[in-house]
């Protein structure tokens, strides 16, 4: 396991007692405000000395209260993007960005300064001091500072919260690239369903200081019993390969013999991709529908229908492309007479497979970089 | 050669003149460190690089002598001084200082400015004189003590205190005060400024300057400042 976290710590009115193991990739920590996310990240960073616990990254023990081992933060080779910026007010933006580099070992793999600056759109700010930057500008500089520190472990506490959608869409692929190409383990706190769905290799849900669910993203998000991010987070992840780019701006993907159409992707034909299809974006049809504007129609067999207290039901459908989840009303499920074992069609609007929900799959290092996203 | 003299600060003017003329005629250089006698004495105790000490207070010289820090036989009483009663203003009526002086009436609700009566020589002499005249008891509550004579004089000069007891040497040059009366010389122990050669190292210049201090030119300078020269 890349990231092994066991932490117990008590504040007067709050106790954190969290354990999880995560494989390489991005581990997204989520949970409601006050559930202990920042506290957990601080413990991993060494800013909080927990009463008890052990944290290891790629087998490298950062601390172990049992073995009385404690690496101070500056030996942990971190890139920590704080929830509140924490830029150095006396340094200009450039110096803030370069700060971690002064202390990184010479031979550490370094992110390219210019590239990070371009990505974050902070080129014009380099000679300014943080005091008069806008909220989002500060946050972007903070991201850059962490990325440029040549970290062996990246901690990101809601790094994108202050950014506009367009900027987020530009920065997200960079985290994916870190995950895939540079293979840095990343602990990422997020409230956003789209971010979680897109980035997470592993999802860890916290509630009042305890881990309520931890596991591979696809599994946790596809589990109708877990909708910690709101109903909108449920969804399924399909593995697909880029087939061709059509002139009308659409890209065709192949998945298990089925063809899926999404807005143009910047990936060469043959590239393996991960597509996320949110459960609430899927309509079910008993018959193969005709004359619909939706381009993606995936036939499959109903595996399971779960309904909770609310009016909704979550239907799992096994298709040739993989498992697809559909969130429909109980009323529809009844009206359509849906039962496990029945054949059914999942109708997905191509535009519902939005850029946010398409990410480079794991293990495709070097094929896609942020520059091409 | 250089001679270092530790001298009571009240000798500044005289020493300035003496040193200037001595240097001109002897070719030796003399540096004078001016501070309170107590500080200078303590410094000498702690090995200060002084060759000659002129104290405003025989007690400190006694101490050094007892500790063997003085060149045997070098101690002399160099100068004498007298005490005066000064009054604020330029036209104060003269008074006769004797057992009959009604000092409290003179003061009214004003203060009598003196140097610290138990620790600073001018204050000690002043208190002794008042006690001798039988005036101390009644005037004691009205005494304002300063850390040195000059501060006491300043109180009279500014009019904060209508009267003060200071050295004759100090009173003369301050034109905001009048000397109202002089204390009889026998009303207090003699006011003496002893000088001595210190027992650390010796040089010809040191001897030379000691001699010069007791000579005619020095005498003139001291007398110009109002001191009585005792050495002969």
């Amino acid at each position, binding site marked *: 396991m890349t990231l092994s976290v066991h932490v117990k710590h008590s504040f007067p009115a709050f106790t954190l007692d969290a354990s999880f193991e995560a494989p390489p990739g991005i581990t997204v920590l989520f949970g409601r405000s006050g559930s202990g996310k920042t506290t957990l990240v601080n413990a991993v960073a060494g800013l909080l000395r927990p009463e008890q616990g052990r944290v290891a990254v790629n087998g490298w023990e950062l601390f172990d209260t049992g073995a009385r081992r404690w690496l101070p*933060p500056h030996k942990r080779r*971190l890139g920590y993007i704080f929830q509140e910026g*924490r830029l150095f007010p006396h340094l200009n933006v450039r110096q803030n960005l370069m700060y971690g580099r002064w202390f990184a070992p010479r031979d550490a793999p370094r992110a390219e300064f210019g590239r990070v600056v371009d990505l974050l759109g902070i080129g014009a700010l380099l000679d300014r001091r943080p005091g008069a930057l806008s909220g989002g500008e500060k946050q972007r500089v903070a991201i850059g500072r962490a990325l440029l520190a040549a970290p062996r472990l990246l901690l990101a506490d809601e790094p994108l919260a202050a950014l506009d959608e367009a900027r987020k869409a530009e920065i997200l692929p960079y985290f994916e690239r870190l995950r895939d190409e540079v293979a840095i383990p990343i602990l990422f706190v997020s409230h956003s369903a789209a971010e979680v769905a897109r980035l997470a290799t592993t999802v860890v849900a916290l509630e009042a200081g305890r881990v309520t669910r931890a596991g591979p993203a696809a599994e946790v998000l596809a589990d109708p019993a877990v909708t910690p991010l709101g109903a909108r987070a449920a969804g399924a992840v399909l593995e697909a390969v880029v087939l061709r780019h059509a002139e009308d701006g659409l890209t065709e993907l192949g998945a298990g013999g089925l063809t899926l159409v999404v807005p143009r992707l910047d990936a060469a034909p043959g590239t393996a991709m991960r597509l996320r299809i949110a459960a609430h974006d899927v309509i079910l049809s008993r018959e193969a529908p005709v004359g619909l504007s939706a381009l993606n129609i995936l036939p499959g067999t109903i595996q399971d229908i779960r309904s909770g207290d609310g009016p909704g039901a979550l239907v799992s459908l096994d298709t040739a492309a993989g498992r697809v989840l559909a969130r429909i009303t109980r009323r529809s499920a009844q009206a359509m007479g849906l039962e496990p074992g029945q054949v059914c069609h999942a109708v997905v609007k191509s535009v519902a497979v939005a850029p946010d929900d398409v990410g480079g799959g794991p293990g495709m290092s070097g094929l896609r970089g942020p520059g091409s996203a | 050669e250089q001679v270092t003299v530790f001298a009571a600060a009240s000798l500044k003017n005289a020493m300035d003149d003496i040193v200037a003329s001595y240097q001109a005629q002897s070719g030796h250089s003399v540096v004078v460190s001016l501070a309170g006698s107590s500080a200078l004495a*303590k410094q000498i105790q702690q*090995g200060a690089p002084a060759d000659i000490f002129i104290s405003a207070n025989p007690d400190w010289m006694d101490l050094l002598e007892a500790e063997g820090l003085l060149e045997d036989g070098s101690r002399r009483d160099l100068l004498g001084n007298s005490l005066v009663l000064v009054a604020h203003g330029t036209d104060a009526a003269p008074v006769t200082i004797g057992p009959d002086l009604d000092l409290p009436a003179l003061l009214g609700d004003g203060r009598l400015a003196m140097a610290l009566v138990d620790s600073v020589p001018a204050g000690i002499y002043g208190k002794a004189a008042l006690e001798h005249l039988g005036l101390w008891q009644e005037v004691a509550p009205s005494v304002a003590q300063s850390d040195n004579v000059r501060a006491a004089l300043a109180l009279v000069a500014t009019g904060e205190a209508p009267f003060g007891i200071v050295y004759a040497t100090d009173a003369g040059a301050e034109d905001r005060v009048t000397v109202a009366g002089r204390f009889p010389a026998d009303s207090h122990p003699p006011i003496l400024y002893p000088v001595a050669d210190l027992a650390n190292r010796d040089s010809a210049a040191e001897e030379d300057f000691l001699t010069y201090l007791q000579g005619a030119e020095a005498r003139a300078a001291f007398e110009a400042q109002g001191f009585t020269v005792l050495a002969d």
Partner: protein
Amino acid sequence: MDWLGPEETQALLLSLRVSLWATLLGLPLAVFVAYALARWRFPGHALLNGLVHLPLILPPVVTGYLLLLTFGTKGPVGAVLQDWGIVLAFRWTGAALAAGIMAFPLLVRAIRLSIEAVDPKLEQAAGTLGASRLMVFLTVTLPLILPGIVAGGILGFAKAMGEFGATITFVSNIPGQTRTLPSAIYAFLQVPGGDAAAFRLVLVAVAVAMAALLLSEWVGRRVARRVAGQ
């Protein structure tokens, strides 16, 4: 400085030298002590704090006397230093020591206040970026407390320029060696007719200190703007 005699010029220059050295040498130590007092808990914390404030509490004459007893040629420390060839007693170096010690509590307080105002979160952030405690101090804490160092420095410099009681008691009042401006002023005040000369020197002292003050205000404002991050 035509109207200043050579002795007076000498006293002025000596005062400047003494005060500058006292401040410059005192500052690094003051930063260290202030940091220790502000950030560390250790046995003897209260004692150190008390010791630092001592020169403020004691009448200067007492401080001077204690210095004389300790650093004089016969004193325990003075004797050792003398073996090493460092003589403080009755030298300008001793005057600098006295001025430095008298100014020390002022340096420490100002710097300590600044250190306590530094957000530890920034220091933590520097730590996560790989800076060791020393580097955090040098690259984050130190620049952020510069206003306090400037403020403490000017306060200390002013105090050193005005220091008299401890200096004259410790190193006496030897022209060219230990006769600083305040000692010279004192000497003038001890004799009839010296007032005018004393006040001339007071004016000189005030002018110098005002110049230093203006300079420090200017530096302080620049530094503050820098630190405020604008």
